[in-house]
């Protein structure tokens, strides 16, 4: 058994080992003395005796085990010392409460008197174990024999201590109270229970410590007491902790004496027997009434302690406690640390390796050894301003932010989510790239959820605390924040509702609104939640309530179109960057505003037709009935029934309105069908016109791919009357484009558009609304719609340069190698069926062709040159050594290569490359390209046989 344990615990140990008694006659005597002075630490002279004793115990046990005792016993050796079955057993015997020590001493006396008769080995009485003593003996009978006839001991119950627990009996949690000056402790009892205190003096002899506390003194009560007035015995409350103000005390006629403490020589104010200094209370208490373990002072507490004039010095010294309470594995490899104590103070380095208590660091300074081993107590984590960190413990645990400044051991952090300043200990922080706001969820509720509370009030969770939420209630008059516990929340409101703004525009979630009146007037941001006509708006410039503002929907105005440009839209800079094509969102003219709402968007053209329900155009899912599970787009709403164009089947079905759920892609009114149809083919490009200022990426055709994929442009119109007509189709329709353009419904939208478009370079078509539609009807113009985008780098005017395709106009940097078909723009080069339908000059020189001119036989020739007009100069003859003629492309036909022929690739990315056809698979040819030696599978159509040279 580890001998040190026995000695450390200062428990009574009486041995009956013959050996022991023989060699040390004075031992009982010594033990006697120790019993009397139990609470005291051993004196110097005793120390030797103890060592002596220790040695003898060692000898004794060493003998029985033949184990060499070594001071530096390793763990394994220590294991070997553990009791085994061959060792004497430990028996637990009941005795009278409070008589444990007495019983033990009596037993010892008995052993001395009776000698070998008593076969027990030792007796142990533990201070913390009442009612029992332990007796070490080989057999239970020996124990019974030994205790026979003794008082205060009840041998009726003799229990064997299992071998495994034997060590626990005698091992004591190293309770050695290591109280040093300047350590932080907590009071265990009294008025100051739980309070943080700082040790200023330790009296080990009397087991008392003097601590410094922030007083909790009710001066009035104190005054009453001192003046002998009646003091109510039981106090209902503990006075709040605050610093003692001597002047205040004097005002209440409390006698304040200034005395010099004989021990320290410092002056203290003495009030009613209590000593104060600098406002702190100095109190001498028993060591038992303070707790030293796991004292983790919070930041606020420490700040308080620092308050009166104490500077950074105290901070550093008090760190030792903080360090002592560090968790295991506090330092990690790679952590940047700074040495705070010792010779190497202020040395910075990064952690290389962590051992038990020593940390190997790699100093950042040059000229120092590669690694230095430093005690972890002398190290402190170190951060630079700008580091992104995460708080790993303390009140703000889990929060992340960026370090703005470092003050010694304290780091100031700007929280990522709240943008608040947090002050935390460097110890509690680790570098991290993660972004969180601490906990964001309790139960089913998450930060920024809209929840309904018990009292039927509702609000948005703006902060999640450890056990409760801060909820911004849905009261528009003033910001009302309530602390709500989990159980007070009924449920999360997850409905997608709509509201009407002041101008009766339908608002949906994510629409950007501006608040027109109320306390937050002028603020603007996307709507996050709508409930009962109350909007919760998120304004990132609003620092309070996590940026949330609660407002009535009537006091808001929709800004820009509904469904603004996705994530960018809440940010003012979004518009700054989109201004090229997007009109500024904020200064909306009222005239335009009513057009912004989705339901009215293009309703004008179809008024009198179908109802303009917000649902129209929305992608929904059918929940019930025959078509349950089908997704589709709402094309019409009639009363309580909805006509839905199914995605999976090409038909429109009528279902009950209650049978659909609009969860799929919440309210995508109008935008999608109109997006390309109207957007890119008509001059009123959505992203450029105020009518349609924002395109959300959400609204991508990708959102409902199948659906979109199934429709042809023609049917687009036929199926969804809301789709605006693109000009070419307009011709096909009986409507007159001009009248359309000037139709009164459109008119209001035009002027602003025009003003907007006016600065567009080369946007000739914007001159008059009518004109633009006429022109738009011509293919060239419609194709140059993009070119009209007010991009500064656009050189061409739309109608201006006929030979130039829009793409080429747009792409000054296109590599020359890219073949460009004037007639068909960039299409055919990208199209997978390149060449099959193009009659452009896709021939290349050196290709073998069949020339069939009218009235002549087919002759084989080799293209020598491709002329700019598309015709080719062909040298007749399979080797190209015949006469040279000029042939039109229509007169030429490529000679289809056969296997193992040399070929030239006529289209695609590899156009112009030569290779060898190594195989044919249906319509595909397997080609080994000469340059790269790649093997490609290419359409046979784009392969041409190369002339032999």
């Amino acid at each position, binding site marked *: 058994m580890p001998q040190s344990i026995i000695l450390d615990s200062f428990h009574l140990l009486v041995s009956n080992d013959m050996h022991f008694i023989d060699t040390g006659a004075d031992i009982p005597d010594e033990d006697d003395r120790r019993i009397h002075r139990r609470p005291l630490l051993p004196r110097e002279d005793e120390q030797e005796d103890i060592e002596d004793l220790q040695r003898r115990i060692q000898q004794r046990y060493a003998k029985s085990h033949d184990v060499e005792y070594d001071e530096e016993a390793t763990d394994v050796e220590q294991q070997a010392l553990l009791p085994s079955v061959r060792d004497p057993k430990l028996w637990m015997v009941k005795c009278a409460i409070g008589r444990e020590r007495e019983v033990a001493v009596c037993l010892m006396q008995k052993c001395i008197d009776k000698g070998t008769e008593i076969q027990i080995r030792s007796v142990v009485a533990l201070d913390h174990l009442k009612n029992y003593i332990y007796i070490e003996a080989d057999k239970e009978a020996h124990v019974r024999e030994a205790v026979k006839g003794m008082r205060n001991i009840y041998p009726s119950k003799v229990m064997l201590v299992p071998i495994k627990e034997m060590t626990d009996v005698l091992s004591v949690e190293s309770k050695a109270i290591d109280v040093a000056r300047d350590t932080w402790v907590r009071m265990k009892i009294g008025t100051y229970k739980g309070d943080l205190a700082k040790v200023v003096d330790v009296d080990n002899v009397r087991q008392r410590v003097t601590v410094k506390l922030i007083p909790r003194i009710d001066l009035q009560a104190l005054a009453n007491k001192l003046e002998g007035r009646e003091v109510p015995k039981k106090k209902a409350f503990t006075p709040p902790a605050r610093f003692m103000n001597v002047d205040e005390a004097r005002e209440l006629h409390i006698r304040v004496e200034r005395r010099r403490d004989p021990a320290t020589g410092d002056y203290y104010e003495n009030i009613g027997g209590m000593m104060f200094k600098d406002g702190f209370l100095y109190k001498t208490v028993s060591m038992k009434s303070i707790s030293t373990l796991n004292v983790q002072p919070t930041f606020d507490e420490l700040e308080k302690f620092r308050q009166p004039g104490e500077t950074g010095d105290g901070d550093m010294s008090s760190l030792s406690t903080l360090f002592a309470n560090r968790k295991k594995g506090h330092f990690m490899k790679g952590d940047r640390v700074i040495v705070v104590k010792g010779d190497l103070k202020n040395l910075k380095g990064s952690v290389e390796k962590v051992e038990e208590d020593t940390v190997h660091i790699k100093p950042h300074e040059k000229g120092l050894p590669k690694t230095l081993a430093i005690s972890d107590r002398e190290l402190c984590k170190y951060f630079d*301003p700008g580091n992104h960190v995460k708080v790993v413990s303390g009140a703000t645990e889990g929060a992340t932010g960026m370090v703005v400044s470092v003050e010694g051991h304290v780091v*100031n952090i*700007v929280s990522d989510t709240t943008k608040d300043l947090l002050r935390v200990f460097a110890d509690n922080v680790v570098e991290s790239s993660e972004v969180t706001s601490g906990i964001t969820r309790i139960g089913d509720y998450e930060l920024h959820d809209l929840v309904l509370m018990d009292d039927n009030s509702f609000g948005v969770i703006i902060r999640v605390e450890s056990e409760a939420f801060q909820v911004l209630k849905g009261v528009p008059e003033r910001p009302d924040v309530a602390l709500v516990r989990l159980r007070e929340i009924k449920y999360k409101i997850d409905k997608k509702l709509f509201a009407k703004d002041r101008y009766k525009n339908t608002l949906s979630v994510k629409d950007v609104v501006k608040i027109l009146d109320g306390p937050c007037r002028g603020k603007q941001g996307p709507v996050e939640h709508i409930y009962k006509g109350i909007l919760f708006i998120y304004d990132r410039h609003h620092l309070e309530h996590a940026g949330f503002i609660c407002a009535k929907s009537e006091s808001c105005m929709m800004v820009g179109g509904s469904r603004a440009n996705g994530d960018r839209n809440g940010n003012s800079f979004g518009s*700054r960057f*989109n201004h090229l094509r997007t009109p500024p969102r904020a200064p909306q003219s009222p005239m335009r505003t009513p057009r912004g709402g989705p339901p009215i968007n293009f309703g004008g053209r179809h008024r009198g037709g179908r109802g303009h329900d917000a649902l129209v155009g929305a992608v929904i899912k059918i929940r019930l009935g025959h078509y349950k599970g089908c997704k589709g787009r709402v094309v019409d709403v009639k009363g309580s029934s909805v006509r839905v164009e199914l995605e999976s089947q090409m038909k429109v079905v009528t279902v009950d309105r209650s049978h659909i759920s609009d969860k799929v892609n919440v309210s995508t009114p109008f935008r999608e069908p109109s997006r390309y149809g109207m957007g890119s*083919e008509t001059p009123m490009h959505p*992203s450029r016109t105020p009518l349609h200022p924002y395109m959300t990426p959400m609204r*991508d055709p990708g959102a409902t791919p199948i659906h979109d994929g199934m*429709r*042809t442009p023609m049917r687009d119109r036929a199926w969804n009357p809301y789709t605006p007509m693109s000009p070419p189709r307009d011709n096909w329709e009986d409507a007159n484009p001009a009248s359309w353009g000037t139709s009164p419904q459109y008119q209001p939208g035009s002027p602003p558009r025009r003003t907007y478009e006016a600065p567009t370079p080369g946007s000739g078509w914007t001159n008059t609304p009518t004109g633009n539609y006429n022109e738009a009807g011509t293919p060239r113009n419609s194709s140059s719609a993009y070119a009209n985008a007010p991009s500064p780098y656009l050189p061409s005017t739309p109608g201006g340069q006929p030979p130039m395709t829009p793409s080429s106009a747009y792409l000054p940097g296109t590599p020359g190698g890219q073949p460009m078909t004037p007639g068909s723009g960039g299409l055919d080069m990208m199209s997978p069926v390149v060449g099959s339908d193009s009659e452009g000059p896709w021939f290349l020189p050196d290709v073998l062709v069949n020339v069939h001119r009218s009235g002549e036989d087919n002759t084989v020739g080799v293209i020598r040159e491709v002329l700019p007009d598309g015709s080719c100069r062909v040298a007749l003859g399979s080797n190209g050594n015949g006469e040279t003629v000029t042939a039109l492309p229509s007169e030429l036909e490529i000679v289809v290569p056969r296997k193992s022929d040399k070929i030239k690739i006529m289209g695609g990315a590899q156009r112009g490359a030569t290779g060898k056809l190594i195989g044919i698979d249906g319509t595909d040819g397997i080609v080994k390209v000469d340059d790269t030696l790649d093997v490609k599978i290419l359409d046979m159509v784009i392969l041409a046989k190369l002339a032999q040279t």
Partner: protein
Amino acid sequence: MFFHIVLERNMQLHPRHFGRDLRDKLVTKLMKDVEGTCSGRHGFIVAITGIESVGKGLIRDGTGFVTFPVKYQCVVFRPFKGEILEAVVTMVNKMGFFAEAGPVQIFVSNHLIPDDMEFQSGDMANYTTSDGSVKIQKDSEVRLKIIGTRVDATEIFCIGTIKDDFLGVISDPGAAS
């Protein structure tokens, strides 16, 4: 810092757009999709300046959508640690002030404002030196140094300092009026 770089993106195009204007539409869509976005690696994509190449389209099974790999040149803006920027103050509070340099929001904590500047609350919150000669308020233009950046998927947020030589207010709207 601004960069002119070449990026690549796979664009999905609806079959409806296949035709003469395919390329235009592709480019329009690309601009719409890309400009103003922010990626952690490259920063904010400010503007597309040209198309390098459009790769071969690949038809997606089932949808008919075609994916084109598009290489485009664009101007990106990416703030760096240690970079000096000029920014416009957008908000002042007791913790410091927020400024914007283009799309980037920068926070300058009061720890990083020179010690002689004090916060003055009121209608127009500001930081003022004791002699009142320098004032930072909303719409002031400041020169600042970025000391830390945090890059999200959609936003870059920076911490800046004006506690250094040659940093601070460069033009003050209040002074002009």
